């Protein structure tokens, strides 16, 4: 390991520590307006939502907490600078990919077991070359998504099946019935991954009928179908899937 790598690992560990302490401070000082874990509060914006942020740099976030934001309800914080920095680290961790945030509590190995057994995740999801293909490959999911996103995916009903994963049933002009997920479509062609795992390439005038299921195949109540410990372990496992940032 060269010196730069060591320095980066040390600073990542320090960031994780700051973010964890920042989380405690945040929940004391900020939730009234900004909501739990940066979701949304009554008076302030969600700090970890899917939106563009005006303030993203460490300095901008530090300044708005330290000095408040003129013309808004955001007050200047009386906390010492060191604590403000910890809150900034926490807010930034909310917006970062799971792998870059402090590890969640839980047992990663037990989480793997839940993934493979009771959760039945591997029926649809590939992990490092093992598993199903109807859902997205999760081998590096923690690099692509935040912990909050993963939690939502496991616990919240989806209003629409995501692009590339919508279940469809269609009947060809020959009378063949094909069930699978729609990988892509436009006015003239469809690309369907069928139940047998075969890619079916179809012109729209080759099909007699198509039924789209709005419901995603992804279950949405893992926080209820798993025990609290199992759910925590599964989250711990998923948020480590990917190469550690170096």
């Amino acid at each position, binding site marked *: 390991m060269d010196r730069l790598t060591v320095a980066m690992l040390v600073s990542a560990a320090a960031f994780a520590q700051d973010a964890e302490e920042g989380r405690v401070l945040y929940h004391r000082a900020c939730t009234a307006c900004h909501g739990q874990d940066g979701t949304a509060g009554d008076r302030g914006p*969600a700090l970890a*939502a*899917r*939106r563009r942020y005006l303030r993203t740099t460490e300095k901008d976030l530090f300044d708005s907490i330290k000095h408040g934001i003129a013309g808004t309800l955001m007050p200047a914080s009386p906390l010492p600078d060191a604590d403000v920095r910890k809150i900034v680290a926490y807010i930034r961790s909310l917006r970062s990919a799971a792998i870059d945030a402090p590890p969640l509590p839980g047992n990663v190995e037990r989480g793997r077991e839940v993934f493979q057994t009771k959760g039945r995740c591997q029926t649809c999801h590939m992990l490092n070359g093992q598993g199903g293909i109807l859902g997205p490959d999760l081998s590096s999911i923690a690099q692509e998504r935040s912990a909050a996103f993963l939690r939502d995916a496991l616990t919240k009903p989806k*209003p629409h099946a995501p692009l590339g994963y919508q279940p469809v049933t269609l009947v060809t002009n020959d009378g063949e019935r094909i069930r699978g997920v729609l990988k892509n479509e*436009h006015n003239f062609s469809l690309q369907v991954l069928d139940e047998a795992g075969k890619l079916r390439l179809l012109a729209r005038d080759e099909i007699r009928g198509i039924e789209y299921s709005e419901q995603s195949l992804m279950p949405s109540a893992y926080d209820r179908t798993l025990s609290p410990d199992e759910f925590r372990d599964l989250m711990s496992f998923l948020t480590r899937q990917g190469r550690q940032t170096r």
Partner: protein
Amino acid sequence: MNRLLFLLVAVSSAQVTYDHLLKADPKDWLTYQGAYDAKRHSLLKQIDTSNVRNLSAAWIYSIPGASRLESVPVVVDGVLYISQPNEVYALDGRSGRVIWEYRHQPALRKGPNRGVAVYGNKVYVGTPDAHLVALDARTGGLVWKAKLAEARDGYWSPAAPLAIKGKIIAGIAPGDHGLNGFLDAYDAETGERLWRWHAIPKPGEPGNETWAGDSWKTGGGDTWLTGSYDPALNLLYWGIGNPAPDFDGDVRKGDNLYTESMVALDADTGKLKWHFQFTPHDVHDWDAVEIPVLVDAPVNGETRKLLVQANRNGFYYVLDRTNGKFLHGSPFIKQMNWASGLTPEGRPIRVPGVEPSIQGTRTCPATSGATNWHSPAYSPETGLFYVSMMEGCGINYKSRDTFRPGGVSFMATGYVEDPEAPWQTYVRALELTTGKIRWEYRQVGSKRYGAGLLSTAGGLIFAGDDQGVFTALDAKTGKALWHFNTGRQITASPITYSYKGKQYIALAAGSNVVAFALQQ
């Protein structure tokens, strides 16, 4: 010697005169919209509903370093001029072979660029460093350049200029940075500025009272898309962009003229003749720059000179273009929640509470709009107005922002796609004076608009989508008759021209320029 003299005479005769522009011979495509009335309807009909199935790619030219072109080609005698930021290309319209290219310096990285103008023997283009540049149409050599504004202030010029009567009209961007807009006219020969019209009135001028306090100073209101022109009335019609800060209206109370307006300017003097404001005090960034289409048609039994526009705010408007009087307005989208209708004067009746908030407010249409820069078309043969548009909502947020000079975003936050309702694009055909939807073509799987429309006397509407599919629709019914996968998201409008008796359809798709013709 005699032969050389002949050559000199030949090259000094102007390629494109004002008469040419007025006549708009269908073999050429002489302006951004093809003709001053911006109908985008070509009289060429070699390609029609009966043979369009035999349309094939004739050539492809890949513009080096391009990403998503929004440029519309201009064609003169078979030579096709197309731009991207800092660059102009002259191509052989028959083979796609490059004739010359021009590279502007300094090459600031700002885009897009939407095209060029031609006049005399020159090609004109706006640049990312806020200049208007005149090039020799035969060689690409630089003839003159005029400074529109200071690039270091953040200004730049994306719109295709418009050539009229010895003048080149040029607009400016971006209002989102709190930089006030204007429209300029330059002498086509010398580059001398002839007039400037300011989109935001100064204290003492009519309209300044629609801005609280000093908010007019950073009011925005830019001119980033090409307008249209009525030679008989000698009026230029130009849509004006959004007020700044975009999403926080509290700091700029009032109607904020002339943002979100259509303005009619005297082409000789740049003086304002009339204005019509579509979205007074806009807080959703619904620039009103969409193409004003000029049509003469009967309204209540009397032929009127009309200006019609499908606005980003979701309403389709019919105005009297002699005086700006509102004649009709109706939504051309089904998902609209910010206004319940329009008053008899054409002012939106707002639904209380549908404005950006700290928490986020569901707003339909989304900020990206029911439609945007890509061109609509009108066919005199069907009497239908065709618009490429989007159904969908956004979640709009606001905060308090501070103006910072130098071209820094001054939007007071923004919007995201409503996760509950995915966006969907359509081509819709509207009855000209009632706005009633006659047919629609749903672009399956497409959610980002950007491809404009072309109407031809062959009874066809050409449309593209975000998946790169270029489609010919029956202008009467909306039925798809032909399609081609260009392979890249289409964010520009198609054109048509003919050379040596052969009709071509051309457009920019992704980084490529693609031309189509009937198979021999």
